[in-house]
């Protein structure tokens, strides 16, 4: 019986002479066609993003659970976040994602200049988002709302003294606001870390795009980075309502 290994491979025998081996980054030799390589790349990227969904999903689950257990603490603590800043940041991040999407289009239609500009705009909006986030973190630092030994519950035990229209919490329930802020920093912090990683990659991609790497038919790095960037976007689309919005009416 002939084994498949012993059978001459048609590519190597029949086609080799007439088949000039042109090395294209969008069609490496172990793929049959460019579409197959693109498909394999997208598939791999999606598998990675699914693991990321599980990673963030664990934190979303913790939030769901503790919000149910310590609802009064979560409601009051959540109301200390600034909705205008969160809403502006949502718009900024959506704009960043939009620029990234246009960038993918520019790479597909081989417009190098548009691609470079869009990648720079994506980075720019990403940095604005991180700047606003840093400002919000700083406010929490000044209010002693970062979980740990310097955490202060006084604003939640005696809200009237701070001019906050909330029902005062009992001291033990007020301690549970630390869990809200722990989850707030864990979730937005991991989100921000993903953005920082993304921005580092964007610098590298912008430089390569400027060199012309992605405007001659090889789109995969731009496309797959776009998938990552939109994923980070989606995480925020859930973080914003969960952390900032859904406890706005605890008093009625």
């Amino acid at each position: 019986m002939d084994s498949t290994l012993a059978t001459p491979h048609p590519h190597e025998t029949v086609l080799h002479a007439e088949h000039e081996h042109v090395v294209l980054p969008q069609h490496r030799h172990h793929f049959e066609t460019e579409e197959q390589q693109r498909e394999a790349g997208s598939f791999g990227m999606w598998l990675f993003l699914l693991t990321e969904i599980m990673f963030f999903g664990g934190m979303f689950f913790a939030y769901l659970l503790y919000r149910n257990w310590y609802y009064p603490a979560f409601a009051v603590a959540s109301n200390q976040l600034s909705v205008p800043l969160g809403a502006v940041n949502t718009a900024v991040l959506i704009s960043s994602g939009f620029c990234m999407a246009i960038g993918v289009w520019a790479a597909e239609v081989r417009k190098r200049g548009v691609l470079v500009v869009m990648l720079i705009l994506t980075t720019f909006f990403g940095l604005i988002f991180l700047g606003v986030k840093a400002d919000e973190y700083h406010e929490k630092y000044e209010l002693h709302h970062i979980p740990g030994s310097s955490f202060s519950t006084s604003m939640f035990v005696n809200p009237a003294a701070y001019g906050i229209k909330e029902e005062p919490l009992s001291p033990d329930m007020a301690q549970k606001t630390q869990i809200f802020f722990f989850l707030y920093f864990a979730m937005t912090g991991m989100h921000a870390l993903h953005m920082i990683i993304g921005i580092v990659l964007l610098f590298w991609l912008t430089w390569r795009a400027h060199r012309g790497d992605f405007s001659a038919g090889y789109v995969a790095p731009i496309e797959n980075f776009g998938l990552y960037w939109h994923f980070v976007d989606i995480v925020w689309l859930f973080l914003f309502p969960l952390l900032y919005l859904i406890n706005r009416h605890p008093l009625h």
Partner: protein
Amino acid sequence: MAHEAIHTDANDPQNVTNPEHAQHHIVTPLQYTYVFATLLFFTGVTVAAAYVDLKWANPVIALAIACFKAVIVILFFMHVAYQSRLIKMTIGAGFFLFLVLVTMTMTDYISRSWGLW
């Protein structure tokens, strides 16, 4: 490009030539602009809805809008609407697995602290 026409379901029913037969599709800037405008519009809606007291419906509406926004980002910004069935199925299976994990973990927590909910 002469052999490009054979990479379709119709011309390659046995999936021999290209098992993935993903038709490459370029989403236009106009489509992206529609998606962008929709996302901004619903961001405004979700902020406005948060300031209206709708009792139990507040978190439901906020999450429904977040899910809707996520779906259009996935379908259009992330091109899933134009991907092969293999990729669509994989993504769907991933989200389904996530829901299964959440449901099973929640079932465990709820049944252990009976009466605390």
